[in-house]
């Protein structure tokens, strides 16, 4: 069941002009994806894997759309090459809304393993990274989305278990 937070996230994407979103689901992102499916102004094309999704986003950007990707942090283990050689090399703006699994509140031990690498990978790739931990961190989202367009870079928005558990 989608929350007001899920709706606010999609509303912020709309407010920024995002009109193409690809996703690979995560339990924490289920509500956002549910709202996305109800939002006619955004073309939602689910991907099988996040690197494929970034390919779709690159094409959509060149076709005049404003893309974003919704994914889990474990996928950073999949997309390093695509971020470096496609999104960064060709200077394509790409907001990445990422569920930050494996942080405090996580029930699945294995998720902690990729959580340990998440910020290190983003840091190694010089990707602007924002960590949403408290519910009101969401207020930063419009500015972050605008920042991605301004600098034509991928940016990461990490949303952890505390953020989602506080979500109304």
């Amino acid at each position: 069941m989608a929350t007001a937070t899920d709706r606010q996230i999609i509303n912020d994407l709309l407010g920024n002009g995002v009109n193409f979103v690809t996703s690979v689901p995560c339990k924490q992102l289920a509500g956002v994806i549910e709202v996305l499916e109800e939002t006619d102004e955004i073309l939602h094309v689910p991907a099988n894997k996040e690197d494929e999704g970034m390919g779709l986003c690159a094409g959509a950007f060149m076709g005049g759309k404003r893309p974003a990707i919704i994914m889990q942090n474990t996928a950073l283990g999949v997309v390093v090459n695509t971020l470096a050689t496609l999104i960064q090399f060709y200077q394509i703006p790409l907001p990445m809304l990422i569920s930050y699994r494996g942080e405090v509140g996580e029930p699945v031990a294995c998720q902690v393993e990729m959580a340990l690498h998440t910020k290190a990978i983003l840091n190694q790739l010089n990707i602007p990274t924002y960590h949403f931990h408290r519910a009101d961190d969401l207020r930063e989202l419009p500015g972050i989305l605008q920042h991605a367009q301004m600098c034509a870079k991928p940016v990461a928005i990490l949303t952890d278990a505390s953020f989602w558990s506080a979500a109304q």
Partner: protein
Amino acid sequence: MIRHDILKTLIPVISDQLVVCNIGAPSQELFSLDDQPSNFYMLGTMGLASSIGFGLALSQDKPVVAIDGDGSVLTNLATLSTIANNPRDNFILLIIDNGSYGSTGDQPTYAGGKTSLAAVAQACGCENVVECAAEDTAEALGNALSAGRMTVIVSKCESGNVKVPVIGMNPVMIRERFMSEVARQG
């Protein structure tokens, strides 16, 4: 015929179309045969030509031809299901299937063995799949463009490359001149 021979026959059909071309030898050969601002050359990221081309087709109305290879499609095989389930009639995926990883020394791919990419595309739900011989590729592509139906073409050819230089063009320039062509009226 090898890939380079096919590309040569395609030039009259694709030179004024939006083309997204696969990494390595395919892009280098196309660049040397007929560089056009309407060509998007992939300089890296193996496997994503079909996805980039499809994202472009989903986002505007002009026809898009993605030129991919059998090895690259195998790398990103699941995208055939994305394509099948979100059909767009302005999209044509041309898989030049030479049964080998051409850019890395012609090592065999499984598409040159038991795996049929045409059958995979059909099983994924692509409704209009054409497998053709190398010499019939230009005609198949021309037919697909005039039919205005989403089509996957698998062109079976021999393994081999022509020695051409690496593309030296700046990636942002490749993208920006391509985007001007995408946005151009008429």
